[in-house]
């Protein structure tokens, strides 16, 4: 046999082993119906729940009014607190009632309008209204405050214009700046788009670390790793099929979730190129399987692997800014976001799915995934090789 033939045969053997081992992993997965069900649940119902159930907007905030003036002006002001943001419960008269309602969590916002409110406004005298806000939840508290002040200040502005007799009493004719805010990529601020995509990314992330790690630790715990050790397989030939099999499962899961939940139910507009999305996803899964491999090498049993996975997963998801925007993090924590592969992957995914970004824009995110991937996979393989010897 010539050199070339030998090489060709070597290659064929290599491919053969890879194929056989990958099939073995897939078979093992297929024979665990509970696991398959959980994976399917993660890619469908779980994403549906996240997308349909959650909104970070102020909706139906229970509001109570203490109107001590009961005039046309005070009623006009109250009428500007509209649904869906606010739902006005009822009127109260005593301060103690307000305190009670806030204590019990029955009111988020109590608006108090002083006596002689209308008379002061007409006379051009300054008057004060009070907002009491239950800030136990700071997100809602902040939004209620922000909306409330917007409504009251624009009312105050109009009242000021009227009492000064400017612009014939209409704000549209007075010397004021009209700042129109236009929201891009998600004009209706549909939380379902954001939540469903972010949940998909979380599920991909969790599975990409857990599945390969579990596949490896399981062999260690059961002792079947001994068989692999005495086989003619190289460390890469042991590790790669696991990654490949899990990647196949995850990619299939993504397709299912796009076809059954994201597009038909939530109408996520897929603005960019799906092939690019799947290519970047492949890079990302390889990156994370390196982390999974690392977890597998330092743990002996699945219980340890599970606990260690949370310790890796939680910071990674958290630092990516998928739960809270990076702009809301303290500077020191924000600087750490560059170490989370999900940070880059998230940018790329939202970029492709919502913003229609292409590779010219996303190259830096892709670079981030690749560079971090070199580290995680390299480190994982190095640890793995050492264990093999």
């Amino acid at each position, binding site marked *: 046999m010539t050199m070339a033939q030998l090489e060709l045969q070597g290659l064929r053997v290599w491919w053969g082993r890879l194929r056989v081992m990958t099939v073995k992993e897939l078979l093992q997965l297929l024979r665990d119906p*509970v696991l398959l069900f959980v994976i399917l649940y993660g890619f469908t119902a*779980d994403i549906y*729940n*996240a997308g349909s*159930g*959650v*909104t*970070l907007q102020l909706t*139906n905030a229970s509001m109570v009014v203490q109107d001590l003036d009961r005039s046309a002006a005070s009623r006009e002001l109250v009428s500007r607190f509209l649904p869906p943001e606010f739902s006005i419960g009822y009127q109260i008269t005593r301060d103690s009632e307000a305190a009670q309602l806030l204590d019990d969590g029955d009111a988020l916002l109590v608006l108090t309008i002083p006596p002689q409110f209308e008379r*002061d*406004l007409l006379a051009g005298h*300054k*008057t004060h209204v*009070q*907002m*009491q*806000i239950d*800030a*136990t939840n700071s*997100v*809602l508290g902040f939004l209620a405050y*922000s909306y409330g002040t*917007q409504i009251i*200040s624009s009312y*105050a*502005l109009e009242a*000021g214009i009227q009492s*000064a*007799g400017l*612009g014939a009493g209409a704000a549209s*004719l007075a*010397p*004021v*700046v*009209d700042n129109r*805010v*236009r*929201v891009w990529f*998600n004009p209706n601020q*549909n*939380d379902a788009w954001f939540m469903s995509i972010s*949940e998909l990314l979380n599920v991909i992330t*969790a599975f990409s670390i*857990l599945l390969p790690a579990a596949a490896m630790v399981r062999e260690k715990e059961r002792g079947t790793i001994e068989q692999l050790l005495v086989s003619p397989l190289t460390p890469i030939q042991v590790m790669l099929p696991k990654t490949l099999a899990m990647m196949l499962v995850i990619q299939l899961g993504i397709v299912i979730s796009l076809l059954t939940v994201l597009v038909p139910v939530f109408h996520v507009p897929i603005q960019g190129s799906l092939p690019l999305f799947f290519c970047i996803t492949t890079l990302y899964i390889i990156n994370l399987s390196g982390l999974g491999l690392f977890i597998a090498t330092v743990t002996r*049993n*699945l219980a*340890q692997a*599970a*606990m260690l996975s*949370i*310790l890796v997963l939680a910071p990674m998801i*958290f630092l990516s800014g998928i739960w*809270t925007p990076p702009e*809301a993090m*303290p500077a020191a*924590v924000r600087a750490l976001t560059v170490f989370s592969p999900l940070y880059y992957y998230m940018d790329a995914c939202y*970029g492709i799915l*919502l913003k229609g970004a292409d590779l010219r*824009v*996303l190259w830096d995110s892709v670079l981030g995934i690749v560079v971090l991937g070199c580290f995680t996979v390299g480190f994982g393989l190095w640890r793995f090789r050492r264990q093999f010897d």
Partner: protein
Amino acid sequence: MNRTRVLAIASKEWREIVRDRLFFALAFVVPAALMLLFGFGLSLDVEHLPLAVVDHDRTPMSREYVHRFIDSRYFDFKGYADDENQLDRHIVDNQLRAVLVIGPHFERNLMAGRPAQVQTLVDGTFPFRAQTVKGYVAAINAAFNVETLTQAISQIRGVPQAQVREQLPLIGIEVRFLYNQSMKSIWSIAPKLLMVIMMISPPFLTALGIVREKESGSIFNIYSSTASRGEFLAGKLLPYVAISTLNILVLWVLAIFMFGTPFKGDPLFFLLSAVLYVTCTTGIGLLVSVAVKTQVAAMIGTTILTVVPAVLYSGVLIPVSSLSSVARVIAHLLPGMYFADIAMGSFLKGLGLATYWPQVLALALYACILFTAGYLLFHKRVDA
């Protein structure tokens, strides 16, 4: 139930846990690490949003308007551009979150007593962030308008500006934030973090407890022993409840001393309801462990069943009142929400059993249901 047998199983489980040093260490490291991470990193005060400005007017007045944005801590000024179309790319690339576009004749319109047009373009990928930006823009704009009105009124009436300024804005707003005066996010978040972390960590600890024995075959020792199903489950659960209770204490100390959250309630009431709560969350893990056949399935199942609902539906990031009806049902089906009420009340409001007895009752009921479900699912006979 025979107490000796329960304790025997518990002590066997405890020894197994302690002898697995890495696992034992992780059982304590994970909750504390999560608390520190979320505690220091989680904040919803959106600041330093990268902003670019397109000023078609380029007058002193438009520059003054722009400066109100530049000088605020909410925006990081990235520079002026000639044309908003140049900036599309940067918003797509996440380099900008907002663009302020000032129309031509801004100054001339205002001077002549007419309204002036300004537009703000905001990246809406993260709806909460977009909403926050809208609020900031409105507040800065309102402050500027008070100023222009003051000038206009003082010109028309011929009174000094200072005098007009005392009157405007006509309606002053007094705001009182209750229970969390400084609106510092961590204050309000720490008690809920305690709840979330104890929703994530204990099920993971417990989830592999029984299925591990099924996989390795040591479960046959139990099958052939005199211990009943209930005794076995109770004995299995005990060590994990003990570890989780210790963790509650650790997190409690962290919340008070690291994050400075006040604790106004009754410590005993809080501790007892916390034990009840971790019984529920470890019970979830136990139930998973009874229901599945392989450790991998238990591990993945717990991730999907607990971590996601813990974060999404328990009212940490999103208040329960903002959830849709289906999600609200899910929220009520999880123990986290009830304990979140108790934790918030104990820490921030100083309320106790008198207010929260329904929540305590719900948790107790929850624990009973979990245990019964586990009891019914677990068989001492091998499936045919």
